[in-house]
């Protein structure tokens, strides 16, 4: 289970709403459904970190 990746989706939704989730999926190329089953690997975490950072920079 990728609890960490799912957490990123929750953060995106909290900070930027539904569009934040969609943009996060677009940037990471991993939709939330797949993020729930994907590994919390260092690579995946790095991708999500960068995507969230980009969202914050763009203001959602």
């Amino acid at each position, binding site marked *: 289970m990728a609890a960490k990746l799912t957490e990123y989706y929750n953060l995106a939704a909290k900070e930027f709403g539904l569009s934040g989730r969609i943009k996060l999926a677009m940037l990471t190329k991993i939709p939330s459904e*797949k993020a729930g089953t994907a590994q919390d690997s260092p690579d995946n975490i790095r991708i999500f970190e960068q995507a969230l950072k980009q969202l914050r920079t763009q203001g959602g």
Partner: protein
Amino acid sequence: MKISTKLILFFCGVVTLFVLLASALLAQTRTVSAGYAALLGQQVRQAETARVIQVSFKKQVQEWKDILLRGHTPADLERYTRQFHDEETTVRSGAVELAGTVVDAKCRELLEQFVAAHKTLSEQYQAAYDVYVGNHFDFKAADKIVRGKDRPPTDLFDKVVRQLNDDVAASVAAQERVVARSRNLALIVSGSLLAGLGLVGLVTVRNILQRLGRLKAVSDRLAAADIEGLAVDISGPDEIGQFGDSMKGVHAAIEELTQLASAAAA
């Protein structure tokens, strides 16, 4: 590697190949030209000089016969004697000069033999001339001294001319062999390079077209909203790979949107 880089490299490869081929062709033309120039400037000219000396020697013998036939007249004697010695000098100096320039050892030896025989013949002609003039133009007595004596030098010089002609023919044949070898080498090298370059180009274009086809299939499914089980497996460092990567983002966003819509509807 990016497609643009591949295309630029391919273009540079084609241009380089043609420049190299043109340079090689130019160098080959120069070599062939230099070979024929050397042939014309030396061996052909020597063969031509030999033919001139051969004719001069025949004219010298003819002048001797004119002396015997018409030398009873003082004016004719003076004229044909002068012409005889002119031809004699031409033959001797020409043969000596030719012997000093020919490369073929056999030919040089024949020329040296001819020069020696010609000197002996000159002495015999002089003795016969003295008899002719001293015995009231007795051409029979004079002719008896030199009769048939011009045959050995004539035969020797015929051999010289034949030998020089054979040398020219051999050199031309050798030159033709060199040209044929260079031509075959150029054909093999240029053919191989062109085939190699063509193969690389074909493989590159085929690879690009295959990946573009896969990209189009993904795009068609996205356009038709057919995302169920859709996998965007197009990657790579080139433009198609980058486009495929963008497609993955779009696909993920559509999936997320679909999921959110489903959750909202439930």
